[in-house]
């Protein structure tokens, strides 16, 4: 079972109007690993992870989740199994606890088998590095870092198998970003999650991920174990980017 990748993309293309955002993507995302997607702005990183829980669809090609075509899974069930954390988190009206309860209550009836194991909000807050006493606070009053942690805890309330993070630390101070990264690493280990994280911070990618994908101009240039890519990249363009990014 472990040989089946969490996500498998074959000949994936995406265009928006005249702009090709993704070009002939062939990529396996291994299950249970933390995968970083790095690359310059406009490389197609966000476009790629939005395909993984069907916030968007490709123009051509196939996306598979755990060996099944992604279209064959009911989209709401897929999105609860593959959670998404946005670059700028949106807090819903109410308290932090309301936000977490809402995520849990959105479970479709078909999910009743999983519902028995629905997570506890306090536990998810703790895992996301938020003091459970925050539960009673107005979600709109939180700082950027607190919002991001709460949005991670909220995403965990759906009991996902995979967690997609779109530049979760880009708007945060370095100290706060480090804490979020430590949280993500802990989460992946404790919950055995497959984590796919878009980042433009190379040090983050190297510190947290076990596998790295380098993208440029809508194409995957190189993909492989993080340490190998950072120490001995195969492609000249990867090498150039890593040197420039240092």
């Amino acid at each position, binding site marked *: 079972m472990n040989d089946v990748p969490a996500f498998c993309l074959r000949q994936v293309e*995406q*265009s*928006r*109007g005249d702009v090709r955002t993704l070009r002939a993507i062939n990529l396996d995302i291994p299950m249970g690993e933390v995968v970083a997607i790095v690359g310059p702005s406009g490389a197609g990183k966000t476009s790629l992870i939005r395909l993984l*829980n*069907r*916030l*968007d*669809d*490709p*123009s*051509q090609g196939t996306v598979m989740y755990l060996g099944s075509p992604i*279209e064959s899974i009911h*989209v*709401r*069930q897929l*999105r*609860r199994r593959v*959670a*998404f954390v*946005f670059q*700028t*988190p*949106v807090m*819903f009206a109410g308290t932090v606890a309301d936000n977490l309860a*809402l*995520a849990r209550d*959105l*479970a*479709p009836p078909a999910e009743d088998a999983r519902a028995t194991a629905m997570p506890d909000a306090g536990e998810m807050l703790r895992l996301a590095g938020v003091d459970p006493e925050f539960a009673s606070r107005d979600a709109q009053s939180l700082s950027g870092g607190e919002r991001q942690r709460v*949005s991670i805890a*909220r*995403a965990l309330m*759906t009991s996902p198998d995979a967690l997609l993070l779109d530049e979760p630390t880009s708007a945060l101070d370095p100290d706060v970003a480090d804490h979020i990264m430590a949280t993500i690493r802990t989460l992946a280990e404790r919950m055995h999650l497959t984590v796919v994280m878009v980042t433009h911070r190379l040090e983050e990618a190297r510190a947290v991920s076990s596998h790295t994908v380098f993208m440029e101009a809508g194409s995957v240039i190189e993909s492989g174990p993080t340490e190998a890519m950072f120490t001995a990249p195969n492609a000249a363009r990867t090498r150039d980017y890593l040197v420039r990014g240092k």
Partner: protein
Amino acid sequence: MSAAITSAAVSNAVLTLRWYDLALASALVLVAMAISVWQRLGLARGFAVGAIRAVVQLVAVGYVLAFLISIQRWYLVLLALLVMLIAATLTATDRQKGRRATLFVISGTAMLVGAGLTLAYVDAVVMRLHPWYDPQYLIPLFGMIIGNAMNGAALAAERLSSEMELRRAEVESYLALGASPKRASAEAVRRALVAAMIPTVNMLMVVGLVSLPGMMTGQVIAGQSPITAVRYQIVVVFMLAGAVAVTSVVVALWYQRSFFTSAEQLVVRSIPSPRSTIAAR
């Protein structure tokens, strides 16, 4: 006194306005045009064209009404209502950006349901008209409710469009948690409905205090007892409330669906994912 008393000198005497009197009234439009020129508003031409159109349209509708009332044919009455519905639908969708074809169908159906059901209820249950198509009542009543339903439809569609654009991140956050499109856009729909219905609520609050409605004013001027005129007006304002609410809710709930693909992906202005759009079609 330029207006002449043409009826007999009874208590219900009605002043009849001659064309000469209307020409004198047009001086007021000239005042509006002069202000526009003075303040460089660029509206003078609009006032002139609007005034001419108003005269032509009202005179035409006057003759059409006179004809319909004299001939009393149900199919001609329904044809007149259909023309009014199409004109209202075109006006309601005129200023909407994009999706015009979709909105035309949605707004037209919503007004047909909202204004049509309301009119049918008042016709059959409240006023119990004989014949049911009596143009003397049906056409003026429909004219009033379709105008308000049109505003409700336009407000609901316009506000929903801007709310969906404004709340894009919120809507996608809901979708990403596995929410249905209906749940994800609930707040946008709610705000669109409030925006569409608030003018009607305000109208109900001030009617008779700040404004005297056209129908009631017309009846009083035409010599009807104010008490009779008030009863008609009460029916009309209740009709407006029902028609606007039903039209707005049909527009908002139906139009909301056009912001999502069949794969429950949000489509706001930006170009949708090609495969999903094709599937959605």
